[in-house]
C-alpha cells in the first residue's frame, strides 16, 4: 500500500530532546516525506530556529521547505494576565513537506490541511 507516513508525536517524546535535537529531528523526518503532528508544539524560539534551519536545507527541485501550522497561544487579556504576562502554553502543531502539505483553512481552534501524495 502506498501512502504518506503520519507520525503523531507525544509530548513525552519531544520533551526529552534538547532544542537543537528537536529541530534536527523534525527537519530530517520531514525531508523523508513524513507528516508530523506534535502533541505539544515547539516554543517560539524553537519555531524560529526551525524556520532558520529549514531555509538552510532548501535545495531547488529537492526540498522547498516546510508547511508548519500551530494554533496561536491562548491570549489572557485580563488585567492579571497582562500584569503577570504568563508564558503561553505550547499547542498542537502539524509540520510536513511544503510540496505535500497545504493548509486550507486556519483559525484560532481549527487547522484544516490537505495532504498530497504527489510531489
Amino acid at each position, binding site marked *: 500500500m502506498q501512502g504518506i507516513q503520519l507520525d503523531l508525536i507525544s509530548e513525552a517524546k519531544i520533551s526529552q530532546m534538547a532544542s537543537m535535537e528537536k529541530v534536527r529531528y523534525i527537519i530530517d523526518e520531514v525531508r523523508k516525506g513524513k507528516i508530523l503532528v506534535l502533541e505539544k508544539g515547539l516554543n517560539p524560539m524553537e519555531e524560529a530556529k526551525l*524556520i532558520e534551519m529549514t531555509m538552510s536545507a*532548501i535545495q531547488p527541485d529537492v526540498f*522547498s*521547505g*516546510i508547511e508548519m501550522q500551530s494554533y*496561536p497561544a491562548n491570549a489572557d487579556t485580563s488585567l492579571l494576565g497582562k500584569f503577570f504576562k504568563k508564558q*503561553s502554553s505550547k499547542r498542537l502543531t502539524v509540520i510536513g513537506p511544503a510540496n505535500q502539505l497545504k493548509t486550507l*483553512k486556519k483559525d484560532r481552534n481549527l487547522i484544516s490541511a490537505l495532504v498530497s501524495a504527489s510531489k
Partner: protein
Amino acid sequence: MNMIKRFKVSFSKIFNKLFKKKGACIGIYGPPNAGKTTLSNRILRDWVGAEETMGSVSHIAHETRHAKRRNAVAIEANGHTISLDIVDTPGLATKIDFHDFMEQGLSDVESKKRSKEATEGVIEAVKWLDDLDGVILVMDSTENPYTQVNVTVIGNMEARNLPLLIVANKVDLPNADPAVIKEAFPQHPMVPVSALEGIGMDSFYEALAKQFG
C-alpha cells in the same frame, strides 16, 4: 521566560528609561508582500525626507532579501519626539520555491538566484530577533492573519517580554478586514493603515510612540 530573566529584562527597561538610552531598535517583520518596505519607506518619507527610501518594492515576493537599518529616525507624536532605529527585514517564510518566481515571469536562473537570496534573507531576519527592542509586525489585512509566521513572531516577542505593535496594512483595498486581525491577537495593540496611500499614519505614529517611546 523564568522569573530571573524577566526581572533582568524589566530592570534593563527601567535602567534604559532612567538614563535615556537613545534609539530603541525596532524591527519591521511580517510575511512576504505584507508591505513592510512600503511602511518603512513611508516612515522615512514622513520623518527623514522625500528622497530617502529603505528599499524597492515589487509585487513579486521576497523583493527585500537583506535587512536594512536606518538609525535615529526622529518621530514626533503625543507631544514627544522619539528616536528609533528602524530595521526593515526580509519577509519571513517557511518555504521558498523557485517555481513560484518563474510563474511571476522570472527566468529559471533569476528565480533560483532570488530563491537562494530569499532563504538567506529569512535567516538574517530570524537572527535579528535577538538584537531588537521591539517589533512592528505588518500583516496584510486582506489575508488570513493566522499564519505561522505571525504566530512565531508574536510568540517570540511574548517570550522575550518585548513590546509589539501590529499593523493591519492595505486597508485601502476593498476586501480588507482589520477587525479579523484584532480578533486573532487581542492581547496586542493593532493599528489599521494603508502604508501605500498614507491612511491611518497619525494613529500609527501615536501607537508607535506609546509602545516604543
